């Protein structure tokens, strides 16, 4: 191997070292601390020996944890289904149909990032509330006699807010993933007699399956672990499992319980990620490559 070849192999290694060091320090070290906490005995903001599995067994046996995990999964699934379901056609339209409007639409999508998270949550209260915009319109049109209370402090409001928050992420991710899907493929399919439905089912869907699934997993994980939106918009059954981690660490001072729930959440999300990566491979979709 020549010196130049060795140099070109080493360059990426050196250049990635700062990022690797940052990830190691700010992600892996805290994770290791959590892992240690989760197997130690806790008592009021302290952990100490002996090593125990009780934090995990308590966390797994807890009816409250199971109920909150179910809430998290349902909220995450709803948000992911609607986010990806809306983002996919939107990203396709931006890539292949928007033409000159693309820049404007892209600006609108990016602009939504610039609005504060809590501001958006409170904005939904004024839109979905009993005296909000939607109920006012419904009442004035005579469609309902009384304000629809189910719009706010319910799964509906949480899902709508989370979709609004994560739709831009999903749209931009899928828009980028569609870059190699050139118009010539679509034209070739059309020339070969494929109608719109066939183009979607036999060309676009197989190619976009893997990135769509990755986006789905991303939105699911972020939504299921979010406990702020459900707290403000979710009603009495809107709490998620993340709340338990917060309560354990700040309220009860039970570091072991909080760490154990965190580690279990991490395992659950890693399984989701593995499914997201593994399913396309099992279906043979991971081998699909675009011709350049």
């Amino acid at each position, binding site marked *: 191997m020549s010196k130049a070849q060795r140099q070109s192999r080493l360059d990426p290694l050196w250049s990635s070292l700062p990022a690797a060091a940052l990830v190691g320090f700010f992600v892996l070290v805290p994770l290791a601390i959590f892992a240690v906490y989760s197997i130690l005995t806790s008592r*009021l*903001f*302290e952990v100490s020996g002996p090593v125990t599995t009780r934090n995990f067994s308590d966390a797994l046996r807890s009816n409250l944890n199971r*109920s909150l995990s179910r809430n998290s999964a349902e909220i995450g699934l709803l948000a992911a289904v609607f986010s990806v379901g809306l983002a996919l056609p939107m990203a396709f339209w931006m890539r292949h149909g928007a033409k000159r409007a693309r820049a404007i639409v892209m600006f609108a999508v990016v602009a939504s990032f610039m609005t504060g998270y809590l501001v958006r949550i409170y904005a939904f209260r004024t839109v979905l509330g009993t005296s909000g915009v939607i109920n006012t319109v419904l009442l004035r049109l005579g469609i309902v006699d009384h304000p629809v209370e189910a719009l706010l402090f319910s799964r509906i409001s949480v899902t709508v807010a989370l979709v609004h928050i994560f739709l831009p992420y999903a749209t931009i991710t899928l828009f980028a993933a569609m870059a190699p899907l050139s118009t010539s493929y679509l034209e070739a399919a059309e020339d070969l007699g494929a109608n719109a439905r066939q183009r979607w089912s036999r060309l676009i869907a197989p190619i976009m399956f893997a990135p769509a699934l990755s986006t789905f997993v991303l939105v699911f994980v972020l939504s299921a672990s979010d406990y702020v939106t459900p*707290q403000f918009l979710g009603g*009495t059954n809107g709490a998620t499992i993340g709340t338990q981690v917060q*309560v354990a660490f700040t309220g009860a001072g039970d570091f072991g319980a909080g760490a154990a729930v965190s580690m279990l959440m991490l395992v659950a999300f890693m399984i989701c990620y593995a499914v997201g990566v593994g399913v396309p491979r099992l279906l043979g979709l991971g081998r699909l490559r675009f011709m350049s």
Partner: protein
Amino acid sequence: MRLKLIVLGGEGEKLADDGKVGGTVNFLSWEGYDLPDPLKDWRAANNINVATTFIGNHDDIQAKIKTGGAASGYDIITYYQGYKNLYTELDILTQIDESKVPNLKNLFPYFASDIGGYWTKGGVRTGVPFTFGAQGLTYDSAAMSELPSWYDLLDPKFKGKVGMVDDATGVLTMGCHLLGLDPGTLKKADLPKVVDLTKKFVAQTRGVSASYGDLTQQLVSGEIQAIYIGWAAVNSFAATAGKTTVTTSLPKEGAYSFCDSFAIPSTAKNVASVLSWINAVMDPKVNAAAAVGLVGGTTVKNAVPLLDDATRSLYPYDDLDGFLAKAPFYPNPPVDSTEFVTGTEWKQAWGELKQSAGG
């Protein structure tokens, strides 16, 4: 050279410092409790700069101090009387040198006493009460009439119109009060009674809220009409937001009261300035301004004539003892106990209760 000593000890241990008033005071408590306006002159006169860390939940105080340790450097905190035992257990509180706070003589006899051991115990002072209040029933008088009883909130017509803050301590203390039980010595067998009663009130809500600020927003927008375990300060918050019809009453069953005290945590460095701060707040003029700003009660007797009419009418100062008998101060549940419900069991019960009430 004098040695600056930080004692990470428990209740009763004194902190020493260089004795000079001035510099930066690191404040950790609720927004507003730093009393920026009432203490404006004192700050200017002593060249004090206040670095504030505001909390969203009382539990943030012990979490920040215990996880941050001495390096966190918080000089002054406040604590609700119910937290006294927990903070003692956690070695957060230090002894306050009463000789450096001559204005302690201004306290009402009740707050100068060692009732409950909340502020002084065994001759050791760990807190100086500066404001108090009763958790009444806050409601929008434009939407409903005053309710004589807390149980009236369970009327089906208020379904979905009641707000509640996500506060395990407050909600279950109120449940205990209504059942004639003491949350500090609640027998484990009695917990289901408190949970069952509280569940009925939670079922009247459309969700528990993160804060009183959040509940105020719901009152102002008309989403809710009343708050189970309200707070007189919400009247003021709502008025500021344009809704002047929000008021707070005390139903016939009474309620529980809260008393917040300034304290010096074991992380404090600028002790002399904190002692001076506390002494300044015991000044009638400063304490009256604090009570008006916080829409709360004053703990300083000579501050009463200095209150505005609205603030003075909040509490009957001519019969404070009688009022506090109807709306008493309670301790929180113990940290460990085989006989009584502990704080951890309490929080667990609240978490499960919220879930089950939501169906």
